Every structure is written in structure tokens, then in C-alpha cells.
């Protein structure tokens, strides 16, 4: 049997491995300390500004911490969040599908020419244009906000998917062809996993843009949802409620990023983490 110099029996950790492990732990600890320090700093700065400017104009963090439970007790909190999330789900879901289809189509130079400027326009246009257009044409009907969300977010998905398809690894597809692998298996085992990081980026950026435009459309053309609540709060000069909605919104976005997107990302891209360790 041939000698294999690369294979070593697993044994106790060497001093070098122990040192690297300790360094890694320290890095994680330091990162958490800085993250917490960031939160403390911004909360203190917010409290200070609130005191200087006045609690009525900029309510401090403690007051907001009391207002959020009040909103929850009133029953408006979950119904408004539910309405906004439903809109994002429908609008962004549709934009995501359209974005992927156009992204795939743009591999053909004819379709690329057909959609090219439309994608650029969607990327650079302020979402306000689409929100107002939707309001004028459809009023408070769902088509108005669906139109605004789709027009603002589909291009983010298209650009990412098209980028991924352009970068498809030819060496792997050639390999699969040499072995006579079926087209379906090639899609499932090469194309989809390769495109997954691009789709995740599209999902993350598209969703963040989708949030903004959804709330914006609710400010203009809705009688429910977070945007609507913020409009009412600002008109009635209930600054604590306005801030409470905004902060709840931030917290939700953070939770979504950390608990949902990042978790799925870790699951999908476990092979990267394994390789880097």
C-alpha cells in the first residue's frame, strides 16, 4: 500500500492548535464587547439628546420602553405589524419571482437588451415615484402598494441573479457533461447551490428595500399598517408612539436578520464554514 504523508491520526491538540483556539475565543469575546459598547453608547447618546432637546420632541429610551408595551396592550401593535408583513410578503414575494425570471432571461443578449434600461431605472428611481404613481392610479387598493414594491425591488433580485448566472463555474458543468450527468441533476447540484449566495444577497437587499417602500406606501395610501400608524402619530404629535413604532421596526429587522436570515445562511453554507476551519 502506498505511503500517505497527508493523513495523520487524530490526536490531542497541539500547542499551536491550543493557541489558535484561544485566539479565536478572544476574538469572539472582543467582538461581543464592542457590539455591546456600541449599544450602550447609542442609548446614552439618545438619552442625552432627549434631555437636551426635550422629552416631548425626542422621547428618551425609557419612555419608549414603556410605550411599546402600551401599544401591545392596545391590540394595535400586532395587527399593524401583521398588515405590514402581509404587504411585504405579497409584494416582495412577487418581486422576487419576477426578479429571478428576468435575471435568468437576461442571459440571452436579446432579453438583456430588452430589460437592461428598465432594470437600471428601477435601481436608481426613488421609491416615492412608484408609491405616488400607485396611489394616483389605484388609490387605497392593494394594486397600488403591490405595484410600488415590485417596481422598487425586482431589479435588486434581477441584478444579483444575473451576476450569479454569469459566474457559473464552467469547469464543473464540463465535468458533469463528461460524466453524462442529467440536466436536472446538474441544475440541482451545481447551478442552485452556486446561485444560493447570490439569491441570499438578493433576498437581504431586496427585503431591506421592500421594508422601506412598504412603510412609505402605508403612509400615503393605507388605513392600516406601521406606516399608517406612524403617520397618525406624527399628525397628532404623539412622538413617543412615532418613536415606538420606529424602534419596534428596527428590532424586528434585526431579529429577522440574526435569527432567520443568518441562521439559514449558516445552514446553507455550512461547507464554507467547515472549509475555513
Amino acid at each position, binding site marked *: *500500500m*502506498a*505511503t*500517505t*504523508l*497527508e*493523513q495523520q491520526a487524530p490526536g490531542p491538540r497541539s500547542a499551536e492548535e491550543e493557541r489558535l483556539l484561544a485566539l479565536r475565543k478572544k476574538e469572539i469575546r472582543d467582538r461581543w464587547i464592542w457590539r455591546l459598547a456600541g449599544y450602550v453608547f447609542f442609548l446614552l447618546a439618545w438619552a442625552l439628546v432627549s434631555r437636551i432637546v426635550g422629552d416631548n420632541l425626542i422621547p428618551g429610551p425609557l419612555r419608549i420602553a414603556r410605550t411599546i408595551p402600551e401599544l401591545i396592550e392596545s391590540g394595535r401593535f400586532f395587527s399593524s405589524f401583521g398588515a405590514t408583513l402581509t404587504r411585504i410578503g405579497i409584494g416582495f414575494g412577487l418581486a422576487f419571482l419576477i426578479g429571478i425570471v428576468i435575471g435568468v432571461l437576461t442571459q440571452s443578449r436579446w432579453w438583456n437588451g430588452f430589460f437592461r434600461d428598465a432594470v437600471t431605472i428601477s435601481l436608481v428611481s426613488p421609491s416615492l415615484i412608484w408609491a405616488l404613481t400607485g396611489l394616483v392610479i389605484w388609490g387605497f387598493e392593494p394594486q397600488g402598494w403591490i405595484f410600488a414594491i415590485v417596481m422598487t425591488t425586482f431589479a435588486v433580485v434581477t441584478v444579483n441573479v444575473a451576476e450569479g448566472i454569469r459566474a457559473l463555474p464552467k*469547469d*464543473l458543468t*464540463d*465535468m*458533469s*457533461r*463528461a*460524466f*453524462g*450527468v442529467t440536466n436536472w*441533476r446538474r441544475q440541482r*447540484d*451545481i447551478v442552485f*447551490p*452556486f446561485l444560493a449566495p447570490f439569491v441570499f444577497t438578493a433576498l437581504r437587499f431586496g427585503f431591506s428595500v421592500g421594508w422601506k417602500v412598504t412603510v412609505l406606501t402605508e403612509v400615503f395610501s393605507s388605513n392600516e399598517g406601521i406606516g399608517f400608524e406612524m403617520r397618525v402619530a406624527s399628525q397628532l404629535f404623539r412622538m413617543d408612539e412615532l418613536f415606538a413604532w420606529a424602534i419596534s421596526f428596527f428590532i424586528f429587522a434585526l431579529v429577522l436578520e440574526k435569527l432567520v436570515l443568518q441562521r439559514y445562511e449558516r445552514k446553507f*453554507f455550512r*461547507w*464554507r464554514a*467547515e*472549509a*475555513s476551519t
Partner: protein
Amino acid sequence: MAEIKVEGLSKEFGVGEDRVVALENVNLDVGGHVFVSIVGPSGCGKSTLLNILSGIETPSSGKVTITQDNHDAEPGYVFQAARLLPWRSVMDNLLFVQKDRSDETKARCQKYLEMVQLGDKVDKYPGELSGGMQQRVGIARAFSIEPDVLFMDEPFSHLDAITARSLRRELHEMWSQTKKTVLFVTHDVGEAVELSNRILVFAKGGKLEDDLQIDLPFPRDPAEDAVAVAKAQVLRKFEELDLIAS
């Protein structure tokens, strides 16, 4: 018995002033339990020939037939780089090229991974393995489909000398056990002499210039006099054909 027949094969890339002839009127007949090396300078069409034989590229003219007992033969391929799916485990990389995922198929994949000494690495991702180990997975993948013929395109050229030598020995042992027809592209004459029964010498412009028989017993040690003499003879042939200068 597997048989590779190549008749009047030519391949050109580009048109007009950019036209490059990669292969010109190549005729070839390879069959049975033989290890055939294809050597020649860079750009002589060695890899193009393998790509055409394996169906990755199409010829400009000529005919290629690869048969096993008068049926279409199934080829396996080992590439210069391992070309593994980084997001699939070692075992899944082998299963990717199989027709099914039955227990029998998995056992066969396991058998070939053990032959390349990676039986305990089935759940690892390619990124967790060294370059030599990745190339071993590539070799196991090609053998695991139990092909009738095996095409290998400079599979050890990216590896360090010690790993390459160890892999050559393993490859030779697998070839002896499985009795495949192997077509092996290399730019290393010593490697060709160590492994092959037959060496096809290609020149720039894609012409098959010579077909040499190496009648020495296996296994061959590069340090042995007879192997060194055979290598010197092949290199002399290179000089006669003016290939070293080119």
C-alpha cells in the same frame, strides 16, 4: 473489451487570422487493458483530444468511436484540477456522477474511496482536504462509475513531487486491478514512461508524430536503469522531432 477509434480527427478554433489548428488529421486505435500516455509540448492538442473523446468538445472533422464489446462505452474522466463540488461531501461528490443512489452504489463508492485511502473522509467537504486528497477523490470518482475507458488530463501536474509519486503508484495499482483502458495526458516524460505501455507523441499543430511501445515490466521504479534508459530514448525521440526546441 474497450476500443477507441479515431479517424481523420481535426479541430480548429477561431476563424480567419485568429484560426488555430489544435488537432490535424489524427488517426488512432487504442484498445484492451492498456495504459496509453499522450505527451507533447504545450498547445499540441493533448487536452483537446481528451475533451473531444469525452464529449466536452465537438470535432471540426473526423470520426470518434468508443465502444465496449460493440456497444457505446462509458468513459470516466480525471481532470487537471479535481473539479469537485465544494458544497457537497466527498461521498456526495462520487454519488453525483452515479446513475442511482442505491446501497450497492454507495458501497461501490466507498470501495473506491478506500482504494485511494480516503475511506474515513466520506463526510468531509473538499475544502477540508489537501490538494492531493482532492485529486484522490477525483480519481475515485472516475473509477467509481466503473468506466470502460478512463481519460486523465495531467491529473498530477498541480501536486508536489512526493504526493504525485504516491498517487502514481495508487493509480497504477488501481489500473492493474480494474483492467481499464486508460488514456493519460501528461507533459512529464518520466511519468509517461513509469506508467504506460504505449506513448503517443504529439507535435505543435496537433499532429500525432510517433507511437512508442514501452515493453518493461510493472511496477516501474524511476530509479531503475531500464526505466531511465527508456526515458532517455523517449527524450531522444523528442529531440529528433524537434519538440524540445518548439
